[in-house]
């Protein structure tokens, strides 16, 4: 049991750090949140830089520890997020790599890695919510095409995506998990309409997607027909692994800056607040250790993250919300000012106990799959 890195890992870290120090100053200015084409160009440009420097594959084939180091160092250095490349690199890409034919892999994977294509995700539906498998978007077979009709929600980057990894119902008579297929849908296909979805933070990070008789070639299906749920689970479990490394690093930085702010505005002298900050320090230190623990476990088990991700997500999402609660206390009246970046982050953090499985669903998963408690009737 140790927390030391191997010489190879330390060397990887040193080289990466050196490269980041050189590469980051060459980045173009960050586009505004509303400038979707600008954001696409910026995010793909960053992926291209990583690719050229030999880091393009890091999310795919590096060891869990190497990924941990990569995410820790890029976040610490203030490098861009994965952004528009997120679904391609972390959802659709790994799915195609695991389940696609050699032709499909050849067609779709290199552009993702080279920062040439943007994917979005068409899983969630307004009426499905936490019960993802109850999705209703229909795909009717017509010769060598599927004809798709329905609607999707919470689709990031839909405005500038080339492709959508789409879950559709191909058998309405089968049990709900058995009639689903996974399609790669070109976003340029006729019948695809994207409408921005404004969140409570006031921004349009997400979109709704309406599909009206959209024709998708059967050759765009990854995996067997009606086997899409299993294919999807591969993708989702991939997401759970090191998904929050960068965020934990960022939260620890926010927490330190909160302490500095509190010292600056006098709130530090309030022991109630000071000790809450201390407790949050314990919390995020532990979450970092839990990350290291889970990564080490994945290393041993061959890289497949287990249900331990639910344990982490439950604790982390509540810790993050508590962090911004305390930020509100530190900032006082200024916590009502959207010009302070923290306030927007506080609003975003409200989704953490909901998105990607509500805390209620996560507790069911922990209770049933880890603790072996029976399902309710």
């Amino acid at each position, binding site marked *: 049991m140790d927390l030391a890195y191997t010489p190879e890992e330390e060397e990887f870290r040193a080289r990466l750090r050196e490269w980041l120090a050189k590469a980051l100053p060459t980045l173009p200015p960050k586009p505004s949140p509303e400038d979707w084409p600008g954001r696409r160009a910026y995010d793909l440009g960053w992926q291209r830089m990583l690719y050229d420097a030999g880091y393009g594959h890091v999310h795919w084939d590096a060891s869990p520890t190497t990924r941990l180091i990569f995410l820790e160092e890029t976040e610490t250095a203030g490098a861009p997020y994965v952004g528009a490349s997120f679904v391609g690199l972390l959802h659709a890409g790994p799915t195609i790599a695991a389940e696609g034919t050699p032709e499909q892999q050849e067609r779709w994977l290199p552009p993702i890695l080279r920062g040439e294509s943007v994917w979005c995700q068409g899983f*969630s539906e*307004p009426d*499905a*919510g*936490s*019960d993802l498998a*109850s999705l209703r978007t229909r795909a009717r077979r017509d010769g060598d095409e599927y004809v798709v009709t329905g609607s999707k*929600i*919470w689709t990031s980057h839909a405005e500038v995506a080339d492709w959508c990894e789409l879950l559709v119902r191909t058998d309405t008579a089968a049990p709900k998990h058995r009639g689903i297929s996974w399609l790669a849908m070109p976003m340029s296909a006729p019948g695809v309409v994207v409408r921005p*979805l*404004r*969140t*409570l933070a*006031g921004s349009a990070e997400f979109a709704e997607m309406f599909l009206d008789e959209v024709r998708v070639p059967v050759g765009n299906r990854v995996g067997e027909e009606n086997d899409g749920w299993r294919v999807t689970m591969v993708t989702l479990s991939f997401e759970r692994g090191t998904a929050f490394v960068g965020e934990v690093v960022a939260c620890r930085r926010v927490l330190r800056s909160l302490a500095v702010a509190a010292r600056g505005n006098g709130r530090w002298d*309030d022991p*109630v607040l000071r000790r809450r900050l201390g407790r949050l320090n314990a919390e995020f230190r532990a979450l970092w250790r839990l990350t290291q623990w889970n990564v080490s476990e994945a290393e041993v088990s061959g890289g497949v993250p287990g249900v331990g991700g639910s344990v982490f997500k439950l604790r982390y999402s509540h810790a993050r919300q508590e962090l911004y609660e305390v930020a*509100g*206390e530190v900032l*006082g*009246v*200024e*916590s*009502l*000012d*959207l*010009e302070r970046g923290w*306030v927007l982050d506080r*609003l975003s953090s*409200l*989704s953490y*106990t*909901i*998105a990607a499985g*509500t*805390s*209620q669903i996560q*507790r069911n998963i922990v209770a049933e799959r880890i603790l072996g408690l029976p399902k309710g009737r």
Partner: protein
Amino acid sequence: MRFQLTDDQLALRDGVRGLLSRRFDGEALRAAVDSPGLDRGLWRELGVAGFFALRVPEADGGVGLGLAEAVLVFEEAGRVLLPGPLVATHLAAGVEVGVVEGEVVVAGVDPGGLVEWLDEADVVRGDAAGAVALKSVDPLTPLHRVPGARASDLDPVAVLLTAAEQLGTATRVCELAVQHARTREQFGQPIGAFQAVKHLCAGMLVRAETARAAVYAAAVTADPVDIAAARLLADEAAERGARDCLQVHGGMGFTWEAEVHLHLKRAWVRARRGGGGAESEELLAVDLLA
């Protein structure tokens, strides 16, 4: 002892609820979010209905009612997220000319340095010199901050009326959560049939009803210690209630169109009035040694 609403109080509450449902329904709320600014016509109607004159003695042309009635009215205002500097204006009735008629909008500088609706105000009470505009987290409450400056001590009545507004939010978000939980289906049944959702809703009701007893009692006694207790419980009921309501709504609650985020944001603004709850806690602690 009859610690229940009287028939007159029930009639007053129903009357205010009726007026507000006609003049400021969900559609009007959404319209106000899209185009901020105070509806002076509505303000005058509030004046005519006695919203500001409520506690002014009849001899001075007011309605001559008391704190209990004011609390009921402010609870209704909180329920529907009625915009405007209601508390500051209400407190200026009988002091500033034109207030009772709803002709004049009054902003006040809060001890925490916060000013709501400064740019719309005809009269500003307290020293707002050097006020800086904030980009308000609540799209329905424009905010300024007065750096450094602290006005005089907070009026306990202002604290109580704010608590009444929080109570309105706490009650409303519980209703919203229950409505959603009854109708939204997941995994083949309404989500309200799941214990986890049920217990979130039960917790919201328990907090709201406990806060209600505290707020109404403080309105009867007007005792500063009772008011401090009412404030703490109402803040908790509103903030946690709105959070839990959002959780019950899931992704739907995270959209701009849902009403719940407006309640959460307003609850945050109200909880900041007077600089937060620490002073109330200290007052209640000292009371234990009295």
